[in-house]
């Protein structure tokens, strides 16, 4: 132990930042709250994934109920549907009355009755066009078969020739069979990014308010500079968030691949890596703003008020993001994803859908880095002046003036 008055002892800035960051890591990572929280998010995420998967597969399915004589067309309906690429489920219904109530309740999309040549369809409001065409085709086929027999031809032979005549299609941009999966991956990534940045950003603010409320900040600042304290806190919490995001991403990826929900693990891995990078950028973009806002108040109860504007920007990013996924390469989307406060949430999902080119990504990175520098300076300045003023809420204007 150094004797009293040993003049050589002092703390280097790097050491101070490391100590503060380490404390954040220790107190957050070791808690049961972190483990439970991560597990809960994982369960929600998997649930969301499965729900998405079933919604996507159910959305286009038409349930066709057949009753009476119409039951005979079950096989042709299935076959034609397969040929046309329409997702149709065929069920038999006991009687007209039962079918009618099922259509009313939405269990059936359409109830078909009558004989093959004269089909009647009952629907709630209107009939899916493709199914309509399909049913028409079956009726016409039936009539055509009868006529062919009348003129003494073999319906099977004639129809075989008819079926052989097909248009040959050459597409300039072949549809991406993985598109559905890419959208799901992008959506999950966006959700994770929004959640991580919002959660760990507010934890920065909460930690600062805790230090102000418990007054421990006065002891800390008698030995550590405000900048070091702020930086250590931001780095520490950022790493905790990164750890959580990595665990969630890797676990989600492993589970999705194992259960066969995902078949494009290459795309998913790339998305996760981009996601981790954008998380860091997004976190550092928002962290010091959260810190500055947090330092304006001295009580946890007042915190929500000052954080609301920042949270709203994040929510706007998330909500816009859902729209972005519908049309990832429109001009509006491109511009929005280049705006630094929105980039960290929007860009990764555009990268996941394959819509963002390298120049766009590079531009977003540069703009975001520049904004991080500016906001860190600003947030740090507010923090520096406001952190030791306890009592009532400090106005931003006063804090900026110093």
């Amino acid at each position: 132990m150094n004797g009293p008055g040993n003049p050589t002892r002092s703390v280097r800035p790097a050491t101070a930042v490391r100590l503060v960051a380490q404390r954040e890591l220790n107190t957050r990572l070791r808690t049961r709250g972190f483990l439970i929280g991560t597990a809960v998010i994982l369960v929600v995420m998997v649930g969301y994934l499965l729900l998405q998967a079933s919604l996507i597969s159910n959305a286009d399915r038409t349930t066709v109920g057949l009753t009476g004589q119409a039951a005979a067309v079950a096989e042709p309906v299935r076959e034609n549907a397969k040929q046309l690429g329409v997702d149709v489920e065929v069920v038999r219904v006991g009687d007209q009355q039962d079918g009618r109530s099922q259509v009313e309740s939405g269990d059936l999309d359409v109830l078909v009755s009558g004989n093959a040549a004269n089909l009647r369809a009952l629907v709630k409001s209107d009939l899916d066009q493709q199914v309509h065409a399909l049913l028409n085709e079956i009726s016409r086929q039936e009539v055509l078969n009868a006529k062919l027999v009348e003129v003494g031809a073999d319906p099977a032979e004639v129809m075989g020739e008819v079926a052989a005549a097909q248009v040959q299609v050459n597409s300039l941009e072949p549809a991406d069979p993985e598109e559905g999966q890419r959208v799901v991956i992008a959506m999950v990534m966006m959700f994770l990014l929004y959640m991580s940045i919002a959660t760990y950003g507010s934890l920065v603010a909460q930690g600062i308010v805790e230090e102000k409320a418990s007054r421990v900040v006065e002891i800390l600042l008698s030995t550590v500079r405000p900048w070091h304290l702020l930086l250590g806190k931001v780095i520490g919490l950022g790493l905790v968030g990164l750890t959580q995001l990595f665990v969630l991403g890797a676990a989600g990826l492993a589970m999705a691949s194992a259960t066969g929900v995902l078949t494009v693990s290459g795309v998913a891995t790339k998305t996760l890596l981009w996601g981790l990078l954008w998380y860091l950028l997004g976190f550092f973009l928002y962290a010091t703003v959260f810190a500055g806002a947090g330092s304006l108040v001295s009580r946890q109860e007042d915190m929500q008020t000052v954080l609301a504007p920042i949270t709203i920007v994040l929510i706007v990013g998330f909500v816009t993001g859902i729209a972005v996924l519908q049309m990832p390469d429109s001009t509006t989307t491109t511009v929005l994803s280049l705006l630094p406060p929105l980039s960290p949430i929007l860009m990764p999902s555009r990268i996941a859908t394959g819509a963002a080119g390298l120049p766009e990504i590079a531009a977003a990175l540069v703009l975001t880095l520049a904004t991080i520098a500016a906001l860190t300076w600003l947030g740090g300045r507010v923090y520096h002046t406001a952190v030791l003023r306890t009592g009532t809420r400090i106005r931003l204007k006063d804090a900026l003036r110093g």
Partner: protein
Amino acid sequence: MPDRTLEIDDVSKRYGDVVALDSVSFDVRPGELFGFVGSNGAGKTTAMRIALGVVSMDSGEVRFDGQAVTHETRTRIGYMPEERGLYPKMKVLDQLVYLAQLHGMTANEAHRSAETWIGRLELTERRTDEVQKLSLGNQQRVQLAAALVHDPAVLVLDEPFSGLDPIAVDVMSDVLREKAAAGVPVIFSSHQLDLVERLCDRIGIIRSGRIVACGTVADLTAGAATRLTVTAPEAPPGWAAGIPGVRVLSESGGDTVVELAAEAGDQAVLTAALATGPVHEFSRHRPSLTQLFRSAVGEGATQ
């Protein structure tokens, strides 16, 4: 004045139109317990915060060992703020180790020192409890340990005795005496003037941001008037009023309290008292720090 003296030199601080400190100067010598007293809002806390660099000063200088106190040398000061503060959810041991490391100790030194102070302040059973689960008295002990854990060369304690039970007051007094004996300048503020009087080598009284008195209790009380308490049951009212240099402060039953002017002799009072009949008590006492404080602070109020 080198040699590990803490010097507050001509320090001033204003908050807008309010003068918090007006050219405050005093020093705390190594091995000395310095008591800092004043009414609420007189500037004690501001002066201490300035010494710790938590609040910036408008002018003046704080020196230790002949050198201006900088951010680098401030790690050698042990500080207990008026508003107590520790991480409520951090364990006692972890908290002390963390603070020791932030003040420049290595992990090993920090652990050893934290354990030492935990033992010394009888917190061993509570070492792995969260601070918020401790009783108020124990929290105060942890707070003291936090000020001492990095083996500071200077101690600055704002109201260290407030809220302590009598046993904790004794523990705290012992620790402060011991630190002073080891050559550490110790300054603390307190409203418990009897304690300050008993414990401190020197005292500074601050009023409205200005030091109005500074010195040992003996120095400060030397010039002040002496008081006598006389118990003479048969004395008639007004018996002492005629003695030259004597002012009667109170007279009730047979008890009379008089104040002597510096040159007046106490023997004249005794003779006069004896002349009235038996005297059961005749005692002379120096003014206490409380009286001194009242007059120092009161004078200002009437100015």
